[in-house]
């Protein structure tokens, strides 16, 4: 039977109810047979059956078979949580020719049998009531079609550092069209300023050359150097961006997804702060550049000060990579000149990762001296000596030096906030971009189709920036290699007949999914941007907005069914 003909039988309600035992998870704490018998007696129910495991292969086959044999036009499964199992059962209904939006689920395990384990009778009654509510709502469900939209199979990457280049390289390798936008005249980002990378000590210059060559060789990467993205519009699958070069005409580009890889910059102390400005006091980044210069010879005494300008009131966060860098460069200095006395002043060492932890032990073994200092007790850097309070010894000390190196943190770029406003993505209190979820969606923004990688998100090592960049490429691949963008039909709909265009919905929509149509004087929902929260529906003064699948009549029917006891 075709889907249309099955859905059109609105008047002749034929509901199938499947009660799951879930082994003994449900059947062990309430009377599933009594619940099944009760379900069969409810108005509109044409078929009711108890299964041992409804989600098993045989359970699902049974649903499909019953839809065919009993000509069902609604299906209810009373089992576990719709949060985990609704997609499975709804798609099974679709496979049997029933519109998946005519499926309803009742939670009689997580929210019934498991929480009333000693009260079989009451739990059985509650399960019956919950099913009665679902049957009532089910009668009012309407068939819906998933929302399909086209996908522009191109991606724009903002930022041509390691993270951005890695993302672009990986996406181009997958066969995607990529547009790479870099503010500077050359690709490479911060990597250009570095000397050697990581415990292996790969020369940064070689790495940059290799990556840049790989990016430039790819025919499907369009490069925009000395350019910035100045406007972003649209939504996942169909973004429009304006790219403005330093000189010349702005270029319009379209993309299905966007990667933000704008990086970060090392903080530079103002003159006099931590002795900065003295010829003998430099930042860690400046040391990297000196080390890269072959004519550099280490002086006799070097002091490296960790957490310079970090973990303080203005910048309360740990920049993560400075401990690794400090120790790496201390080892390099020692290697170049074993006679050089190297001191590292630190607050806490964060050498995360096995390869890096061993660098710390190597450094100690090579005679690099480590001292714990207190940031608030007499820390003073002069042109030839550093005074500090040694927390382990409990005494004030002074160490003379020929060169002091300040390990300063990476800070967000000045324009991070501007970019965040333009893209409508959030930043944290330190202006680093904020991912959708630190553990579950570390490279995604909450806004669909926009991703973040590298130090724009948080200070990252070269390897981390690279793997994050490739990670965003993989995330974008999962979206852009599909035929179409398919999203749930459970979104808000506005009745243009009764909408008075008061704009109230636009103000409460957290997703900017509603726009005003001045020609018709009504508000309209962009179904792809709408996430189906229904905030607009509850606040619409003329009740012109309804959330599909959760319309007032549908919820009222549930409430009424509850009162029928």
């Amino acid at each position: 039977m075709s889907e249309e003909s099955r859905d059109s039988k609105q008047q002749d309600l034929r509901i199938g109810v499947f009660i799951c035992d879930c082994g003994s998870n449900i059947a062990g704490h309430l009377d599933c047979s009594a619940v099944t018998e009760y379900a069969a007696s409810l108005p509109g129910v044409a078929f009711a059956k108890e299964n041992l495991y409804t989600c098993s292969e045989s359970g699902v086959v049974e649903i499909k078979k019953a839809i065919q044999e009993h000509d069902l036009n609604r299906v209810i499964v009373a089992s576990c949580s719709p949060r985990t199992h609704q997609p499975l059962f709804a798609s099974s209904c679709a496979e049997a020719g029933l519109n998946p939006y005519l499926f309803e689920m009742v939670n009689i395990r997580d929210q019934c049998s498991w929480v009333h384990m000693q009260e079989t009778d009451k739990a059985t009654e509650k399960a019956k009531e919950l099913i009665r509510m679902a049957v009532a709502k089910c009668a009012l469900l309407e068939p819906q079609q998933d929302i399909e939209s086209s996908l522009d199979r191109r991606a724009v990457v903002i930022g041509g550092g390691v993270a951005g280049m890695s993302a672009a390289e990986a996406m181009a390798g997958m066969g995607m069209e990529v547009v790479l936008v870099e503010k500077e005249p050359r690709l490479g980002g911060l990597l250009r300023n570095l000397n050697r990378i990581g415990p292996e000590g790969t020369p940064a210059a070689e790495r940059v050359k290799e990556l840049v060559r790989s990016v430039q060789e790819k025919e499907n990467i369009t490069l925009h150097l000395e350019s910035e993205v100045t406007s972003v519009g649209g939504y996942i699958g169909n973004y429009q961006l304006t790219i403005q070069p330093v000189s010349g005409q702005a270029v319009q580009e379209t993309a299905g997804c966007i990667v933000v890889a704008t990086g970060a910059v090392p903080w530079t102390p103002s003159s006099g702060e931590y002795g900065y400005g003295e010829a003998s006091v430099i930042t860690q980044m400046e040391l990297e550049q000196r080390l890269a210069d072959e004519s550099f010879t280490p002086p006799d005494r070097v002091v490296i000060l960790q957490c310079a300008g970090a973990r303080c009131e203005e910048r309360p966060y740990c920049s993560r990579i400075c401990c690794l860098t400090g120790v790496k460069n201390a080892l390099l200095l020692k290697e170049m000149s074993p006679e050089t006395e190297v001191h590292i002043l630190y607050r806490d060492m964060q050498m995360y990762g096995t390869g890096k932890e061993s660098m710390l032990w190597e450094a100690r073994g090579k005679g690099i001296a480590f001292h714990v200092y207190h940031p608030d007790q007499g820390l003073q850097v002069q042109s030839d000596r550093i005074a500090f309070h040694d927390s382990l010894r409990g005494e004030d000390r002074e160490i003379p030096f020929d060169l002091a190196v300040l390990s300063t943190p990476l800070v967000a770029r000045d324009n991070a906030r501007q970019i965040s406003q333009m893209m409508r993505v959030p930043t944290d209190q330190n202006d680093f971009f904020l991912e959708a979820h630190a553990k579950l969606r570390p490279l995604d923004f909450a806004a669909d189709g926009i991703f973040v990688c590298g130090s724009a998100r948080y200070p990252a090592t070269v390897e981390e920036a690279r793997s994050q960049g490739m990670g965003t490429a993989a995330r974008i691949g999962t979206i852009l290699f599909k035929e179409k963008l398919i999203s749930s039909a459970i979104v808000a709909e506005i009745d243009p007949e009764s909408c008075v265009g008061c704009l109230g919905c636009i103000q409460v929509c957290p997703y900017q999914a509603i726009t005003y149509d001045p020609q018709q004087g009504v508000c309209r929902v962009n179904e792809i941007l709408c996430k189906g929260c229904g905030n607009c529906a509850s606040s619409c003064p003329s009740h012109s907005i309804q959330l599909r699948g959760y319309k007032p009549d549908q919820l009222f029917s549930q409430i009424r069914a509850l009162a029928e006891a």
Partner: protein
Amino acid sequence: MSEEFSPNIIAFACNWCAYAAADLAGVSRFQYPPNLRIIRVMCSGQVNPNFILKSLEEGADGVLVAG
């Protein structure tokens, strides 16, 4: 004394947090009285004042909006 009063409570629970929390209570086998009926909504912001009034009108003793 007659039987102890047990209120009928209707909860409107947000799919993404409160409803998930109620699932978690089950997974953790927390026990609570069986006089609560949860209606799943996609956001607590979806709950129209009419839903609450309707619940009370139809005999609920208490309404919980959780999200």
